[in-house]
C-alpha cells in the first residue's frame, strides 16, 4: 500500500501564518487582518478574499517577502518528519507559489499552491486559487492511502477526499467544521508524527 502525507502550510507546518507576516513587511498588517477575519467569520469567500489580499500585497518586493517567509519558524517535529519522508510528503497550500516556493525548496518538499499571474516579472494577481481537493485527486493516481493534516476551513476539500484526516491544533484551535470531518485531533507536533508513523 502506497501512503502519502499532505500537510497544510500556514499554521500547520509553520508556527506562524505567512500572509500576516508578508503584510507586516509592507505595513499592511491591519488591512490584511480585517480581510482574514472576514473570511474566517464567513462574510467573504476564501477565493475572493485571497485575490483581494494579493491585490493589496502585489507591490511588496519579492526579495523581502522571501526573506520573511524563509525565516518563518516551523514545527521542528513536523519538519523532521517531512524531511525524513520527503518522497511521500506534500505541502498543500492555498498560498501563492512564488511566495512559498523558496521556503518549500529549502525544506525539500513537493507542493501544490495557488498560481501567481505574472506580468514582466511583476506579480499581477492570481492565475488560479488552489482548490485543495484537486491536489488529492491528482495524488490519488499514485497513492491508495492518503493522510491529510490541516487546521483551516480551506482544508475541508482535502479532508473530504482523504483516507485519514487529522485536525491539527498545534498553532491554534482547528476550524470547527474541519474537526467534524476529522478522524483524529492532535495538538502537539511530536504526537502528530507518532500518529503519522502508525497510520502509514
Amino acid at each position, binding site marked *: 500500500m502506497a501512503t502519502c502525507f499532505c500537510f497544510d502550510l500556514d499554521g500547520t507546518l509553520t508556527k506562524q501564518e505567512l500572509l500576516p507576516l508578508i503584510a507586516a513587511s509592507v505595513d499592511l498588517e491591519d488591512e490584511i487582518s480585517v480581510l482574514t477575519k472576514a473570511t474566517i467569520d464567513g462574510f467573504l469567500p476564501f477565493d475572493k478574499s485571497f485575490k483581494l489580499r494579493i491585490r493589496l500585497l502585489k507591490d511588496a518586493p519579492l526579495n523581502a517577502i522571501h526573506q520573511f517567509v524563509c525565516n518563518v519558524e516551523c514545527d521542528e517535529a513536523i519538519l523532521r518528519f517531512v524531511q525524513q519522508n520527503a518522497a511521500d510528503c506534500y505541502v498543500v497550500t492555498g498560498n501563492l507559489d512564488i511566495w512559498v516556493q523558496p521556503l518549500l525548496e529549502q525544506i525539500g518538499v513537493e507542493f501544490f499552491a495557488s498560481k501567481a499571474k505574472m506580468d514582466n516579472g511583476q506579480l499581477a494577481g492570481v492565475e488560479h486559487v488552489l482548490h485543495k481537493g484537486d491536489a488529492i485527486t491528482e495524488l490519488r493516481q499514485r497513492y491508495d492511502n492518503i493522510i491529510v493534516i490541516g487546521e483551516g476551513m480551506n482544508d475541508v476539500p482535502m479532508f473530504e477526499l482523504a483516507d485519514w484526516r487529522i485536525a491539527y491544533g498545534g498553532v491554534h484551535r482547528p476550524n470547527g467544521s474541519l474537526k467534524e470531518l476529522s*478522524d*483524529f485531533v*492532535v495538538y502537539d507536533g*511530536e504526537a502528530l508524527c507518532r500518529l503519522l508513523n502508525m497510520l502509514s
Partner: protein
Amino acid sequence: MSPVKHVVLSAAGIGSRLGLGRSKCLVEIHNRSLLSYHLERLKDVENIWLVVGYQEDEVIEHAISLRNDIIITRNPEYAKTNTLQSIFKVSRHLKERFLAIDADTVVDNKTFSAFMQAAAIHEYLIAVSDYTTAEGVRVKIQNDHVTEFNRENQDPYEWAGIAILGPEMVIDKSIFVYQALTPFLPLPAFKINAFDIDTTSDLDMARHVLASNWKTT
C-alpha cells in the same frame, strides 16, 4: 518506563444511566475529574489515545489542558456504537499490545501499579476487581486466569473494564468488549481495586472509597 506503549481510554459514551448530562470522564470526585485521575496514573505511557464522542469539545478541551500530547480519536457514531468499536478505532492502527481502559472507572493507584508491573511478565492481562456493581460483568477465575465472563452476579470478581489486549482481539462489531474477549479465554487475571461508574450509587461508592483510600468496600 511503562511496559506498554499505548493506552486507549474510551470516553465516547453518553453515560445515560448516571443521568448527569455530561460525559462521565468529566465527572468530578473530590474536585478532580475521572480523566484527570487516569492521566496522572498514565503519565509514563508514551501514547495516550483518547476516544471521544459525546460532548467531544468539552472532553477535548479538558483533556488537552491536562496533557497536550494526547491523540484524540473521534467516534462521531458514539450514540450507535459501543466501547469495543471505540477501541477498534485505535487498535486497527496498532501492531502491538495496548492497555484499554474505560474512562468511567475509578482505580486504586497502588493496585494499578502492581497490574502494570505484572504486564512485564504477561503479554495479555485482564484486570478483575471485587468492588462489584449492580450491572457489572462477573468473571470466573481458575488458576489466576479468567475462564468465563457472565452476568449471573455469583462470582466474587467483576471485569474492571481494564485490560492489556492485542489488536487481533478487537473487532468492529456491536458487541461488548467481554464478548469479543471470550474466544481468547483463558486469559491471565490480575486483581486490582477498581469499578466503573454507571449509576448514582456507583458514584456515591466512588466518593466513599476514594475518601477512605480504598479501605472500605
